[in-house]
């Protein structure tokens, strides 16, 4: 039992304990009231919720971009509150990958250069092996012909696929995706989601995806819903039934 617990704990890549976040502006706005989640290596988790429910806030805290008001965040077993600013940058570079609603690729760099950015930030120059790895990933997502093109010469779906490969370039343990299909038409959105799912299965990186799309959420391993600053897991069967009935209604 103890062994199995140890194994399970060692496979947890993201864990939060009593995570709270309050914004202190003119008005005090509590957003997260005490979040406890655990994400296993290789898991694909969808986070759903109304706009303003705190999904993106949670994702930013998990990505060490924002700090909680209370509670603990462990990434790959490390309490991020104990890390210096440079250590947090290194954590974001090597352990975490980010995909945003907008691709945020650098217009000045080509598709390949953008995909290599996490490596070049860290090492200055990518090795031949690293370049081959990233080229293979780009090929895998259908961007082999686009590697020398700049973002303005590629479609929205192609840019988002490049952004996913950028998130995977340093072989992170967890990829945080904040509505990655939110800015794409449904066809491109499906393509991007399928690629993320495939990468999740092939590369073993855990994915935490915030989405408004119930249909895509249904494809995740687990669905977490955030409501009024609290998180709870949704039974996928129930969610599926709800989804079918809402489709029938429409």
């Amino acid at each position, binding site marked *: 039992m103890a062994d199995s617990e140890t194994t399970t704990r060692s496979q947890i890549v993201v864990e939060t304990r009593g995570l709270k976040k309050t914004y202190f502006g003119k008005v005090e706005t509590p957003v997260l009231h005490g979040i406890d989640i655990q994400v296993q290596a290789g898991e694909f988790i969808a986070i759903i919720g109304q706009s303003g429910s705190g999904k993106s806030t949670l994702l*930013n805290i998990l*990505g060490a*971009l*924002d700090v909680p008001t209370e509670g603990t965040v462990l990434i790959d077993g490390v309490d991020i509150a104990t890390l210096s*600013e*440079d250590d947090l*940058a*290194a*954590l*974001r*570079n*090597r352990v975490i*990958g*980010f995909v*945003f609603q*907008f691709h*945020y690729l*650098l*217009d*000045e*760099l080509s598709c*390949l*250069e953008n995909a*290599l*950015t*996490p490596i*070049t*930030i*860290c*090492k*200055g*120059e990518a090795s031949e092996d690293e370049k081959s790895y990233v080229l293979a990933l780009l090929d895998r997502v259908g961007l082999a012909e686009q590697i020398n093109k700049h973002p303005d010469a590629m479609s929205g779906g192609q840019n988002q696929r490049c952004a996913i490969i*950028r*998130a995977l370039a*340093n072989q992170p343990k967890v990829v945080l995706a904040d509505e990655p299909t939110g800015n794409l038409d449904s066809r491109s959105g499906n393509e991007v989601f399928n690629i993320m799912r495939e990468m999740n299965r092939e590369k073993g990186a855990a994915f935490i995806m915030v989405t408004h799309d119930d249909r895509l959420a249904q494809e995740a391993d687990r669905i977490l819903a955030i409501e009024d600053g609290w998180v709870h897991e949704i039974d996928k069967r129930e969610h599926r039934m709800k989804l079918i009935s809402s489709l029938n209604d429409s």
Partner: protein
Amino acid sequence: MKSSLSWIPLNWRFEARLALRYLMTGGGQTLLTIGSVAAGVIVIVFLTSLIFGIRAKLTKMLTESMPHVTVKVRDLEPVPLSEIQDLDSAMSSSRIEKKAPQLKFIDDWQHAIDTIRTVPNVRMALPAIQGQGFASKGGNPIGVSVTGADPSQQDQVSPVTKDLIAGKYVGLAADEVVIDYELAKDLSVSIGDRIRMTSSTGNTEPLSIAGIYSRGQGRGGAYVTLRTGQSLFGMGNSVNVILVKVNDLFGSDEVADRIQSLLPYEARSWSREYPSFVSSLTVQSASAYLISAFSLIASSFAIASVLIVSVLQKSKQIGILKSIGAKRSQILRVFTLEGLIIALAGSLAGAALGSLLVFLLSLPLQKTARPGHVPDQLFPVAILPVYIFGAVIAAIIATVIAAWFPAKRAASMNPVDVMR
């Protein structure tokens, strides 16, 4: 992707690549910032070349034809008896009367010259006779300053040969004289004619005109050999002045002070003879520095504002870079390097264009010229490498400082705020 930047250390390569890409894709914005730096440098190069060119020309005009330090016997100032303490109770006069100027001899001039030559910054020391006289040819005598000195040495102290419009100076015989063009005109004489030269001591020598010179500075004087000068002024083997030329013009005061401390004579530097001239040169230089500083400040503000806009435009990119692991120091380096590249490109372009402008300005000549001489430059500009180098360095420092503030702002951006 690599190769061209392989000479840059690995831990700077990402930043250098990004800074270069930002500039290369910046188009008009990049050209505008480089142009701002270049404009600042052009102003400095042009201004310093013009002001220091004018300064050099004026200084040369004034000092070329005069010794930098003149050594002569000190004129004793009369002192009222009441100021002599020992004679407190004695009779005293309240009337102070200066002695009439007299030619005073420097008898030990050979020793004095040896001593003067040991003073640092002294290029040469020349024994000479200087006095007033009258030149005449038949009609009324005309007052003239007479200098008696060895011609070849005199040429090194206040050149005569280079201003000759006819005849010769070096190789002057004892019965020959070189006179100024205006004096020659007034006396209606030319080369080979004979004039009478009468000194203030009353001695008269008939002299033949061996050369006529013009410095374009109004009526000049007459030059004879040292021997003739001694004879004219009845000085025997003595001289009454030692003319000193120094290497660094603006170090003349120190040379004069040093000579005075070593010899019992009065040594006067050119800069103390013309204090208002020196003061106006100082004002000119200060103005040049001031205008240069203001133009640098103005271009720094222009650069800072363009870079601030650039940082604001790239705030989302900065956010994403930080979210994928770029450190604060790396972002700072990207934008500081961008500023540094702008500074290098702008200041070098400014130095080249400024030098070209100065060169072009140096070409036009004045419409009139001194008799027998080619016309002077219309703009007396001088390309001064030290000031061009200084302008480049100053522009680089100012630009990097101007770039540092927006870079710092970029580095401290919170990715969550900028990507929201």
